[in-house]
């Protein structure tokens, strides 16, 4: 490591840091460290003048390393990296010391806080010495996109991409397209027919020259990395392989199994059915009880399997509107029929939904509110009530114990991740949250990408959502992919792990550890190597490599060790 010329910039962040930490003292301490050429305490280092100072110093004093002691690197690391770039040195020659979020904002004693700030700054200085120039790399991008799932999201994604003239391979597990939407009659809140919506899309997809539809097929394995995936698909004609630049996962959801809530006696009581069974009746246009009679009173029980500690804690999002929709459909089919909505809260957010709720209410649907923990009870009714059922509920809004007769009970079953979600997640290397939904790379700012480059998610496989949400997400995913396809090559992050081939002994310790199967083992040479484009730089293999052959770029043993020595210099000077 040659002699470095380091510049240290201690930000006061107005008074945010300065009011507790003695920034000048920190700067003075920095000045005393070997390699530090200049150390400044400045009011707002992230401000334009602040950045200009850094650029100026780099150019005039010939700095080749920069340490900024300021806010969290999660806040301004990109800002200062750009500054380094502007000044003409590698952006990775920067190290930040977090003396705001993790110092001045949480400590009140100026002495201790300043001491800590100095330690953090010193650690940064010691570390930055070992920083290496990193370059972003570029790899070729395959033009084909693989879409998993032929539901509304999959169809949309496929069409969007194909319309842009890019080839698509659509893989559908079942023998027909349409997914769950194909099981729905009308849609809330505008009561359009789901079938009409689908028919049109499915036609376009089937006919589209750029789309290859594989029915009764499943993804068996996915190798490679963004831009260069290789998909092994099992079709009914036999195995089928295709390269792919990106993958959109639209595997959707499955309905909650109502029989799990024994309390409601689904499967035991003949006239207790699920929302999907009701949809079927409505689609066939024959709404009848098991006895073949048109129902006089229909009770819709909300949140079956949703928003409950023992099943799913989350809200399934579409059931409330669907229940209101049933109110309309049932009333229009059987005007003399009474409809009860037994609900916890009415979630009527979204366009047109509040009005829809109101309209349903005006149609004299009786809304009965129950307490989360205190489910309605379904009991056989006396002959007085035509031998139907009686539903007892502690009605929350009135505080009264109510009973209502019903000859048909509909359980509004929630959505849950498909059984094979875990398998899919493993195949394409994405994560699932605690409920099993696929995790997006950022819940707010990046809801369609995943932590695996080139793998996108859309529709209800990411979280319960309705048709508009799924379509929007699918279009967003397609847009992201088309943006990538707009370039011949794609950028791969500069921070990743790499194996020193001269040290690797082929023990294969790392192979199994990599969550992204980014490490491949060359059996002939008996060496492992990291596919950098796949690597997400978690560093698990680096810590595990017994021969110290794997290096975690920008988080090398040397850099972290220097940091440790830096923060503990005080302690070690005592002992």
């Amino acid at each position, binding site marked *: 490591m040659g002699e470095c010329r380091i510049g240290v910039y201690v930000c006061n962040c107005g008074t945010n840091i300065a009011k507790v930490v003695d920034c000048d003292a920190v700067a003075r301490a920095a000045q005393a460290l070997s390699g530090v050429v200049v150390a400044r305490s400045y009011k707002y280092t992230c401000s334009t003048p602040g950045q200009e100072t850094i650029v100026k110093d780099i150019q005039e004093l010939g700095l080749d390393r920069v340490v900024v002691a300021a806010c969290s690197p999660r806040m301004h690391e990109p800002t200062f990296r750009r500054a380094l770039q502007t000044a003409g040195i590698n952006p990775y020659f920067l190290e930040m010391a977090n003396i705001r979020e993790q110092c001045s904002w949480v400590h009140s004693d100026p002495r201790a806080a300043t001491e800590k700030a100095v330690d953090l700054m010193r650690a940064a200085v010691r570390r930055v010495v070992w920083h290496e120039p990193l370059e972003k790399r570029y790899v070729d991008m395959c033009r084909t996109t693989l879409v998993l799932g032929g539901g509304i999201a999959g169809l949309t994604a496929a069409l969007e991409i194909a319309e842009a003239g890019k080839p698509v391979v659509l893989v559908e597990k079942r023998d027909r397209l349409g997914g769950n939407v194909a099981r729905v009659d009308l849609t809330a809140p505008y009561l359009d027919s789901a079938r009409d919506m689908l028919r049109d899309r499915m036609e376009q997809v089937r006919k589209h020259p750029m789309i290859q539809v594989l029915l009764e097929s499943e993804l068996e394995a996915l190798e490679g990395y963004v831009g260069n995936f290789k998909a092994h698909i099992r079709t009914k004609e036999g195995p089928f392989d295709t390269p792919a630049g990106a993958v959109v996962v639209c595997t959707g959801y499955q309905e909650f199994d109502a029989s799990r809530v024994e309390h409601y006696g689904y499967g035991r009581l003949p006239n207790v059915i699920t929302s999907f069974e009701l949809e079927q009746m409505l689609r066939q246009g024959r709404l009848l009880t098991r006895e073949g009679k048109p129902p006089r009173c229909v009770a819709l029980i909300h949140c079956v399997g949703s928003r409950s500690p023992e099943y799913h804690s989350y809200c399934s999002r579409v059931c409330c509107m669907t229940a209101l929709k049933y109110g309309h459909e049932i009333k229009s089919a059987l005007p003399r029929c009474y409809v009860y909505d037994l609900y916890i809260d009415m979630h009527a957010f979204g366009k047109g939904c509040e009005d829809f*709720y109101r309209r349903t*209410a005006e149609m*004299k*649907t*009786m809304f009965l509110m129950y307490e989360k923990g205190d489910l309605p009870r379904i009991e056989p009714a006396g002959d007085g009530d035509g031998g139907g059922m009686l539903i007892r509920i502690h*009605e929350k809004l009135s505080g*009264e*114990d109510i*009973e*209502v007769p019903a000859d048909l009970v509909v359980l509004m079953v929630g959505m849950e991740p498909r059984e094979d979600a875990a398998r899919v997640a493993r195949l394409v290397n994405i994560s699932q949250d605690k409920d099993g939904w696929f995790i997006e790379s950022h819940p707010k700012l990046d809801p369609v990408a995943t932590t695996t480059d080139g793998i996108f998610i859309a529709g209800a496989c990411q979280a319960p959502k309705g048709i508009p949400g799924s379509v929007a997400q699918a279009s967003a995913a397609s847009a992201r992919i088309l943006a990538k396809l707009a370039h011949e090559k794609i950028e791969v992050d500069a921070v990743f792990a790499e194996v020193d081939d001269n040290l690797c002994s082929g023990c294969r310790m790392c192979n199994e550890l990599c969550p992204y199967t980014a490490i491949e083992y060359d059996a002939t040479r008996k060496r492992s190597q990291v596919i950098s484009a796949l690597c997400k730089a978690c560093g698990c293999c680096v810590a595990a490599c017994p021969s110290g052959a794997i290096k975690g770029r920008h988080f090398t043993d040397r850099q972290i060790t220097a940091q440790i020595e830096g923060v503990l210099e005080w302690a070690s000077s005592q002992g």
Partner: protein
Amino acid sequence: MAIRANPRLIEELELYGAEDVSKCYHCGNCSAVCPFSRDPFLFPRKSMRYLQMGLEEKLKGNLDPWLCYYCGECSDECPRDAEPGETMMSLRRWLTSQYDFTGISRLFYRSWKIESAAILLVAALTGLGFWLFGSSVGSLGVYDGPGAFFPSSAIHKFDWALGFLLAGLLLVNCARMWWFSIGRDPKLRIPVSAYVRRLFLLPFHFFTQDRYRQCEKKRPWAIHLVLMLSYLTMLVLIMFFLHLVQSGPEIDWRVHAFGYLATAGLLGTTAFALYGRIRKTETHYKHSHESDWIFLILLGYVAGTGIVQHVLHRAGLNTAANITYLAHMMGVVPMLGLEVPFSKWAHLAYRPLAMYFSALQEEAMEARGRASEETARLRAA
């Protein structure tokens, strides 16, 4: 024991004018803005809820509608235009029909045709009866005194007979009101002493409309008070001083003074109310049930014919006066005979009673509350 919900009730209530109940989603704004809504009489939201779920029995015993004076604040505030004020109004109509054991009230409220028909019928019978009677005892030319077409002494007797009949009917319905709201509820055990102690509430509220006064809008109260007092004055004059009212030509100035005042009051307020309802000037005038129109028209008619026949008589046109008098009676009898016990007018009895009963209910509940606390404390000790 769970209460059976009755989805049909809400449809029935539409006939009484409650058309928007189902829009309510229980934000509770109405109860929040209502100056009267307070524990344990939380309205209108609670009543709206009972109604939506069709808890008929709960509603029957519910005094809340009578505690509401329809200032309209709630309806103005309602985000869903569920018209809580109008719902309370409709509930008052419905309750009246529930209190009435004859079932006539129910008929009237559910069909204005039947009500009008009944009124016209009674009017016709009255007309016929009085004509036969009048022509048998005297001549159209004579206004009062011996040989008069309508000798005040006879009318006086008739009035009292009618009065007793109405009082009887009304009393029975009031008793039913008591039964629904207090009597049948085992939880409400009220000592006689309490009944006596609170008795003053009846005349107090009857004469002052004090609760109405507490509404934020004062004008409706003032108008209502004038109407009520005028009506009362007229009633007193007729029931006790009819001879003085009718006798002439030289006349007692007090009768004159009160008579004119009351008439002015009646006509004025009626006119105002009619105007209001036609123009929908106030929230509480927005929705008018047929019964409201019939009531006002009848009132206006009676007051009108009353003053006209008085004037004719003053002018010495006895024949004309007598014929108008007949017309007047054809209005009075159906008004008193049908409207007071079976329709809108009955509230003159139910409102003060509601004040009285609610006070008793509250007292009883507090007592129970204290008792239970006491037992709790004892158990703890």
